[in-house]
């Protein structure tokens, strides 16, 4: 149990933002070590500022430290200046809590929320002096376990990880701890024995336990190597968030980070069914936290942390059925002082704007909506069923209530998108500005556009991503349209980054060599524009004889084996395929929470249900569609706390 702090301290004057490496946050835990305990190092492989607020990591940090048989510390990817300071001074990758070398932990847990951080995973392992390949690791080396949304397709990093966890981590982290504890305390038998045992835990995928079978270039199946290895690994789902009021002590950093406020998760899952959205698909069903628990978490959190802003997090917070109740009581709670409440993802309708106005009485910042597509036809394709009426009444309502700035998020490069659909993005922004002029002198609308990257376990997983040239052409088209439009600002994401993301997103095991090559050529922090380099990826693909067309640009067929077919997010593949066909026909599908079940598999397959905080559906209708909502007995819904 050593700390490298004495050696590190004198070097911190030589790096940017030394605050990244000192720990000391309010809520940080100094673990009580014991030789028998399983020690986890939970790492977010991006900068401290991006990684610290991650709720998933903080939840596991608390759960592991609450257990009598385990301890957890945290780590974040050292920025490039720190990485070279560490290498020059022969110091290892370390935890921020007590500055222990990563190699001294039993388990290195990595949170993978974005594909482009994969090269940082290798960088962290290498700095830790842990072999980057699972096959090279010995029994005394730490186990490398990953979790987070990206791990629904872990194949591109199969060579580097010992296990991937699918789904919610709250329960499975204990299952893993118990298995590792038995192994560790019975003398650490071979590496293979622990990997095989981990592979039997539901929700845990061990790449070592599966062999890819190819026919020429095509993947045929992933074949289990051992009799006890399951053919399909199912995701883990926590059935009721009320059982998990975590994090109880949200970390309050000393330096500024993203999302620097109290974050309270109000629900997990989403039933709107946007066809491009991986998060919405893989986190089903909807599990709302009881309104009362949300209130307690807010008031206790505010008192403990001193934050004056709370964010109610979820994939679509205005859809939280207890929203009005929570908002009203939070604003009325005088103990909370001058508290402002933010909703990170707003539904597009007037009702939502009303809530936002209520919330931002004290400080009114900009409003952000995500229509995602400019034309109604396109929105039916992607199943983001926001009508023009709803949109403009929301905009009207916002400007009339004093907002002057508005931000609209869109995707381009969607299935069946024509230039008319693309241009409709700017038309929509222009109309918003027009609506604004009736209330404001100089209203402004910022249009932010990203290139669409298809993701596994979505109806668009078969779609061939637009080429970089095509995305770039669409961005130019939009830029030209925006130029002549007063009040419309245009921002876009780097289309080159979408290519690299596309390579990994639906890649198979052969992509591992590409990731390693990019890392070896110095391609770390690929999420950061100052470090991103598409050429590294293109060169690496070429070096290993892999084509962008095969992995990224071609449409996939119904018959072919997808690299993640041996994993399951609960969704039936035929449901996703039907959704893909419907998308091409521009046929929408209504929110399943308040209408009868479409049998996607996420509830029925696991014997679980949607859990809601209120018997009343949200005002304004679901998805802002104004669609009539008549809850009937056939709806698979239970109320949180009280099962009916």
């Amino acid at each position: 149990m050593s700390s490298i702090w004495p050696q590190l301290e004198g070097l911190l004057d030589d790096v940017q933002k030394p605050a990244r490496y000192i720990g000391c946050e309010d809520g940080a835990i100094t673990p009580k070590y014991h030789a028998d305990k399983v020690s986890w190092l939970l790492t977010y492989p991006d900068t401290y500022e991006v990684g610290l607020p991650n709720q998933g990591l903080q939840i596991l940090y608390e759960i592991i430290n609450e257990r009598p048989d385990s301890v957890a510390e945290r780590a974040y990817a050292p920025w490039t200046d720190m990485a070279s300071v560490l290498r020059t001074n022969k110091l290892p990758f370390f935890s921020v809590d007590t500055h222990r070398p990563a190699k001294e932990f039993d388990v290195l847990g990595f949170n993978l929320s974005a594909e482009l951080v994969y090269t940082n995973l290798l960088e962290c392992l290498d700095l830790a002096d842990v072999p980057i390949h699972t096959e090279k690791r010995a029994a005394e080396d730490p186990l490398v376990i990953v979790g987070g949304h990206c791990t629904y397709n872990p194949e591109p990093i199969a060579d580097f990880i010992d296990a991937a966890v699918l789904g919610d981590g709250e329960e499975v982290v204990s299952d893993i701890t118990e298995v590792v504890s038995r192994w560790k305390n019975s003398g650490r038998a071979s590496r293979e024995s622990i990997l095989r045992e981990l592979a039997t835990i539901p929700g845990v995928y061990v790449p070592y336990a599966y062999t890819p079978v190819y026919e020429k270039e095509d993947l045929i199946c992933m074949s289990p190597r051992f009799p006890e290895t399951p053919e399909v690994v199912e995701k883990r789902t926590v059935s009721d968030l009320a059982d998990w009021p975590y994090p109880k002590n949200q970390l309050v950093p000393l330096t500024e980070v993203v999302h620097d406020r109290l974050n309270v998760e109000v629900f997990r899952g989403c039933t709107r069914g946007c066809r491009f959205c991986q998060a919405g698909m893989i986190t089903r069903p909807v599990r709302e936290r009881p309104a009362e628990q949300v209130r307690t978490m807010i008031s206790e959190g505010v008192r403990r942390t001193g934050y004056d802003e709370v964010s109610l997090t979820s994939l679509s917070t205005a859809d939280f059925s207890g929203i009005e109740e929570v908002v009203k009581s939070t604003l009325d709670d005088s103990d909370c002082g001058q508290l402002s409440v933010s909703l990170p993802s707003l539904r597009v309708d007037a009702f939502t704007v009303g809530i936002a106005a209520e919330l931002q009485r004290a400080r009114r910042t900009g409003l952000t909506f995500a229509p995602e597509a400019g034309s109604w036809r396109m929105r039916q394709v992607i199943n983001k069923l926001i009508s023009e009426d709803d949109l403009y009444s929301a905009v009207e309502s916002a400007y009339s209530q004093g907002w002057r700035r508005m931000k609209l998020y869109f995707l381009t490069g969607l299935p069946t998108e024509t230039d008319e659909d693309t241009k409709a993005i700017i038309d929509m922004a222009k109309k918003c500005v027009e609506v604004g002029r009736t209330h404001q002198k100089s209203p402004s609308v910022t249009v932010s556009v990203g290139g669409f990257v298809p993701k596994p376990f979505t109806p668009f997983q078969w779609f061939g991503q637009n080429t970089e040239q095509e995305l770039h052409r669409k961005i130019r088209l939009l830029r030209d349209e925006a130029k002549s439009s007063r009040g419309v600002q245009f921002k876009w994401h780097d289309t080159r980054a979408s290519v690299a993301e596309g390579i990994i997103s639906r890649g198979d095991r052969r992509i591992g060599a590409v990731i390693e090559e990019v890392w070896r050529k110095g391609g770390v922090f690929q999420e950061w524009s100052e470090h991103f380099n598409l050429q590294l990826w293109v060169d690496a693909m070429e070096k290993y004889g892999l084509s962008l067309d095969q992995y990224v640009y071609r449409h996939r067929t119904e018959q072919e084996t997808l690299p993640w077919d041996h994993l399951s997010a609960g969704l039936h593949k035929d449901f996703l395929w039907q959704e893909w066909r419907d998308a091409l026909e521009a046929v929408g599908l209504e929110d399943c929470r308040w209408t009868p079940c479409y049998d996607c598999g996420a509830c029925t397959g696991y014997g679980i249900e949607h859990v809601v905080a209120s018997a009343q559906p949200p005002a304004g209708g679901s998805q802002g569609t104004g669609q009539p909502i008549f809850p009937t007995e056939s709806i698979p819904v239970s109320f949180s706390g009280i099962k009916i």
Partner: protein
Amino acid sequence: MKKVRVRFSKKGKIRFISHRDIARIWERSLRKAQIQLAYSEGFSPRPKISFGLALPTGNESEAEYLDLELVNDIQENSDALADLKEKINKALPKGIEVQNVAEKELGADSLQQVVIQCTWQFDLSDYTINQAKKWAEEILGSLEIIVERERKGKVVVEDLRKQVISIEVIGETDAGVRIQADLGTQPRTLRPSELLAASNPPIKARNVCRMNQWMLQGEERIEPLTITDTPAPSAHMAEVIRRELNHVRPNGQASESGLNQQRIIRSTTKT
């Protein structure tokens, strides 16, 4: 009394937190301590907290200051102030500690305006006492120390010598030779690191700590607020160390040690 001045120290790991972040920590900690602060008027109300001179990230301090404006009057008795101090200390992170809280006259000038110089201590590693003395003599013996800095794309030429009020070599520590220096803050604060970077060859200091801040009261320099009940750290230090040199002199006078007057010119990096 509605305005109070707070004196605090910043030591240990938290010294790596920037001035800007420290300001945010104060706002949050005061809310957490449920201190009723006055807020500014307007569209985006802010609590009325005025911070003193910025402390360079990585440096420690025995003497940081800030002024607060409270909503309610506070009785001028030590109990209420002691209570305030205790409440704030409970809410602050480890490494920042309030040493004293006292009344401040309404409308008195801001800390950034009144402070004219600071006393610093730092260690020169890899230096012997004699080398350190020579270094101090060279600086004090020079007429001017011209540095060129790039500021907002423009080259600014500055004479650091005017800002060097005194340098003493005060003894040896584990980390090297300890120096105490009084450096000016008007119109711009001279940081120990800047002075050292302008030396030939450039030196790196360790364990940099701001010991005192000074303002003028008539002819006399005084601290904006002392630590009552404890001796001032500079006085305390004086007993432990051997006084080797005392080079307090007005600007630009010739050195007693007879060193040639010289002009030191260095370029430092962007600021």
